[in-house]
């Protein structure tokens, strides 16, 4: 008769890197759910609430210290996603241009068999437009490729 299994592990917070890519799928399921129930306007309302609540400290810092803070924010999140090579940023005069060659979230979702919802692009378009407004900046989406999540957008004073 095979021996019964007994498994036990103990982990401290610092033992692992915080990177649970499945959260991209969970995020999109939530956005899609709001879209199904409340439509485009509901998704905008939800993501506006999110941006206003979560990006408050970032916006304060941008207002105080300028576009470089925003540029660093993008580098930090792409570094956390281990995809900094997909991000190019440039500050010229009063404008920060952000270019993304392909979105790590879109890629992960597709690889794991989840098709991003039609509202997923709002995590760029709405969230960054609200962030820009909170920073006293204007936001312009130059392009967004729904297939790969490649995008280019600007924040201007």
């Amino acid at each position, binding site marked *: 008769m095979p021996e*019964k*299994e*007994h*498994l*036990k*592990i*103990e*982990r*401290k*917070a*610092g*033992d*692992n*890197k*915080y*990177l*649970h*890519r*499945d*959260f*991209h*799928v*969970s*995020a999109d*399921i*939530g956005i899609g*759910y*709001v879209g199904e*129930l*409340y439509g485009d306007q*509901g998704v905008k*309302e*939800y993501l506006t*609430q*999110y941006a206003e*609540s*979560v990006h*408050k*400290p970032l916006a304060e810092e941008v207002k105080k210290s300028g576009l470089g803070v925003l540029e660093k924010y993008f580098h930090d*999140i*792409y570094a*956390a*996603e281990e995809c900094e090579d997909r991000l190019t940023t440039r500050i010229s005069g009063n404008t920060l241009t952000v270019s*993304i060659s392909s*979105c*790590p*979230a879109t890629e992960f979702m597709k690889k794991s068999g989840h098709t991003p919802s039609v509202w997923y692009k709002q*995590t*760029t378009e709405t*969230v960054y437009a609200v962030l820009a407004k909170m920073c006293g900046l204007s936001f312009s989406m130059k392009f967004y490729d729904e297939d790969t*999540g490649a995008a280019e957008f600007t924040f201007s004073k």
Partner: protein
Amino acid sequence: MVSCTEFIPLYSELFKFLEKKGGKEAVVKYWETISDRYVEPRLGEEIRKNGLKGCWNYWYKSLNEEACEFTMEYDEEKNFFLIDMKGCPSKGMLLKRAYTEPYKDYCGHCDVLYKRCAARYGIEITCDLTECGEAKCKLFGRKVK
């Protein structure tokens, strides 16, 4: 993109948004939906293939990727699976953000999501959330049929 490292506040804000629209009932309905759409093909599939040990397989991946502080145990003979969460990074992240209130029953989602899915395969899950205000909880699973 909302980075996967920014997901937890997005999730918490979703619960607040849904409650504003339709009360707690709307939030619980969402938890049941995500249990069916997200947890079922992952945890459900593991349990279907491996029984109670499927719980170990599922949470081994997610708790390590979420950099949790925890002890996890699976005992086939004694018929139990236990997560003793000593530092939940999700709740911990929300508690650290003094500028925004987390959804008041944020931890309630764990109780609904996993219990609902595991019950389909004869696994009973119970959660002890009495210390969730300190980002600590316990999840206990056992095979009942």
